[in-house]
């Protein structure tokens, strides 16, 4: 349900950036949602559609990039890719992992006219 708050924050950012770029229409949004972030991308798509209604990004295409989870395995002493928090190391099956990346939520770029 917090996807609604995140979508509203995204559309606020879009509005700000569109005004700064002197653009009246936003036709495409590129958003990065890490595999380990707390966001369900299906819920986010739905919420963005609703939040964008009546603004410059209404009907804009939403491209969601999902960078994988990256963690440091204390046993392997190596950086590994994990599908979720709590998942074991794909190399040694150990569970002593420190998450290093893949939890980002960013508006990367947008196409405007």
């Amino acid at each position, binding site marked *: 349900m*917090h996807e609604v708050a995140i979508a509203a924050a995204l559309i606020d950012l879009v509005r700000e950036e569109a005004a700064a770029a002197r653009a009246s229409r936003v036709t495409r949004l590129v958003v990065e949602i890490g595999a380990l972030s707390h966001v369900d991308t299906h819920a986010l798509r739905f919420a963005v559609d609703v939040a964008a209604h009546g603004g410059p990004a209404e009907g804009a295409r939403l491209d969601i990039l999902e960078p994988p989870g990256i963690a440091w395995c204390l046993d392997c002493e190596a950086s590994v890719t994990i599908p979720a928090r709590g998942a074991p190391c794909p190399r040694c099956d150990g569970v002593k992992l420190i998450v290093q990346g893949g939890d980002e939520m960013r508006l*990367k770029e947008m196409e405007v006219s």
Partner: protein
Amino acid sequence: MCATCGCGDGDRRIETLPHRHDHDHAHAHGHMHTHADGTTHTHAEGHDGARLVSVERDLLARNNAIAEENRRRFQAKRTLALNLVSSPGSGKTALLVETLRRIGQKYPVAVVEGDQETSADADRIRATGAPAIQINTGKGCHLDADLIRGALTRLGAPPNGILFIENVGNLVCPAGFDLGEAQKVVIVSVTEGEDKPLKYSGMFAAAGLMVVTKTDLLPHLDFDVEALIDNARRVHPGIAVLKLSAKSGDGMERWLQWLDAARALRLAAD
């Protein structure tokens, strides 16, 4: 690669729901035109006059900026702010009431109560004599930094003391919203499942301390506390753990010692 959902590329994930591979809006993929000199060529650009703007901003940038403002305010008053998070019914309010009773007049305390509806929890806190303010989020599932900023203007940050922020009972949404707290404390009762840290990993990854509550019920349950702790350390190897019962008082002394230590750190640091 499908540009709508990102499937089919090595570093992106395939969405699990069935979906179509055609796009749901029509747009021209190029156009041909003739110049005054008679030459004709095709543009690859789809949208006339479209340009790409690089943004690279965090979606929660606004919330995070207000959280930093709150944090500076806590710092100025040397207030230790703790964000208490859990599922509904974990015993957060009962733990708080007992904690406030034991702290008594030792140092200043205040409580921000977050719930979707009712002021029942703030009433329970106020009955202990501690100042409290209720925030009703309505349909909102979490507190955000702006709500805390608003509460602070009315309640103030207790100088050299502790501000307890009881978040809305929800193990998912509050994880991503920084309020300006020194740390998140996740509370799990023994009547829940040992696998909660794996199911709601984001919250356990974000919390510095896990408090296991209602331990007086353990003799009546098949609950494996060690399995719960193992699972919590699996998502967060450095998480601290306390076990207690607000009802019997077991473990309360260690929790108060933990609070004293955290407060001492807050007082010592600029």
